[in-house]
């Protein structure tokens, strides 16, 4: 699971990096989207759209502003994937 999570984390870093126009290697797990990475509400939606398309999951409206770090995003996606696979 640790490897799976780590691989997922790398994918998310790349996905976020593509949206915000930064190099994925600059992004840390704990970097705050809003304060450290300059993500605003528009970029947050773009990231959500990209995540949902890539993993074919749906993130609830109210979860979006609560996801503030790459680590939290990984957690939310992991849970959504587990829920999807359990069906």
């Amino acid at each position, binding site marked *: 699971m640790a490897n799976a999570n780590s691989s997922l984390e790398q994918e998310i870093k790349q996905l976020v990096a593509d949206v915000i126009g930064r190099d994925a290697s600059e992004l840390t797990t704990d970097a705050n989207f809003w304060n450290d990475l300059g993500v*605003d509400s*528009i970029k947050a*939606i773009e990231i959500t759209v990209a995540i949902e398309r890539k993993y074919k999951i749906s993130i609830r*409206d*109210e979860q*979006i*502003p609560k996801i503030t770090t790459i680590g939290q995003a990984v957690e939310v996606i992991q849970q959504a994937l587990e829920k999807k696979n359990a069906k």
Partner: protein
Amino acid sequence: MPSKRIVITGLGPICSAGIGHTQVWNNLLAGKTNIKKEKVVVDDELWAEYFVHKVDGFNINNFGIDRDALNYIKEWKEGEEIVDLNYLLAAVKLGIDDSKLTPKDCEKHTSLVLAHENLNLMPLGIKICQLAYDMLKSNTDSNISRKEFLSSIYKKFLKTGYDAQTFMGLFHVAKTFNIHNYSLFINNACASGLYALEAASQIIRSGQSKAVIVATSDHTDIYKYIWFNDIGIYSPDGKTRPFCKDSNGLVFGDGGASIVLEDAQFAKARKAKIYAEYMGGGFSLEGWKVTAPQIGSQSYQNTINQALKNSKVKAKDIDLLVPHGVGSGPIDYYESKAITDTFGKNPTKPLITAFKPYVGHNLGGAALLETIILLLCLDNKTVLPTLNYSNPDPKLNISLVKKATNKKISLALKACCAFAGYNAAAIFKT
């Protein structure tokens, strides 16, 4: 057989700028917004404070509506007054008066389309909460059974609950104005007004009716405020700043609106004043999230293009565009992208202006109310400037009208991107 032409012959606005189109237009020209602080106090405890564009001097008895009809509603509702319904009734009366449809026209040839997001629902919720609290407080031994509690509340709210069904609002308004033809209730969130106009045009084109009254309304309450505030899109300082760098959300605006549409031949035969022709609309349901548009999708662009196609006009011929313009970052961005994709970056044509800084966000009634203001701009050959547009966001690549501009408008577009992804656009021709 050529399709029937649909014209607009009556306007009935009620908003913070006034009651009736003459007063509304004069106050809009003067830049009056009538924003006031709403304080919600419960048992001496302050619950919330927020800004709202308020309607002053509204009294349902001042519109010349048949007294017996109003009394029927009052008796049915056992004295309970629903402000949203009163706004609907008053707006319909203003629209009928403006169009000069006769009582016979209403009875024989006219249909009714109402649009509202939650008619009666909020008053019902508030009453239930209050009664539940009172019952819990008075029942000190806490031995009341769940069944006893539920059945007691159910009995007390039988009438109010029944009335929360949308057909009841439709019934009351139609009965009041003796409208016995086709009737329809619509709810497509903030885009409801444009959906209602399209439905009305189809009713006329199908030959069902010669005229249709479309009416909407919304009255602010704390529950709506809490929802919008919690999701971070209610302006704390009460200023709607569409497409600005310092936009900080929307502000509610109370009121109602009605537009009368007619078969052009019927309107001409009775020598009605014609404000504009309704050319056609475009509609789509993006259906991604409830509270956020799907940035990057083409849904809104497709909607506008569909409106252009259905109206048989080209984007380059549109003179005036009135967007939703809520003053919330992602929604403004989503709208500006659709505008620049359709009209090019930093277009000089069409002129773009937004009306929520004047009258606030009337939610389910917003699109219709703003369409009336658009039609008043056309009628007065004057494009109103966008208030509070002092800090435009250059990244959005659009520029809004900053001062009142005298101009004859031939083609105008009203667009709206609503919650849940209800996108709508409608085109009007003078």
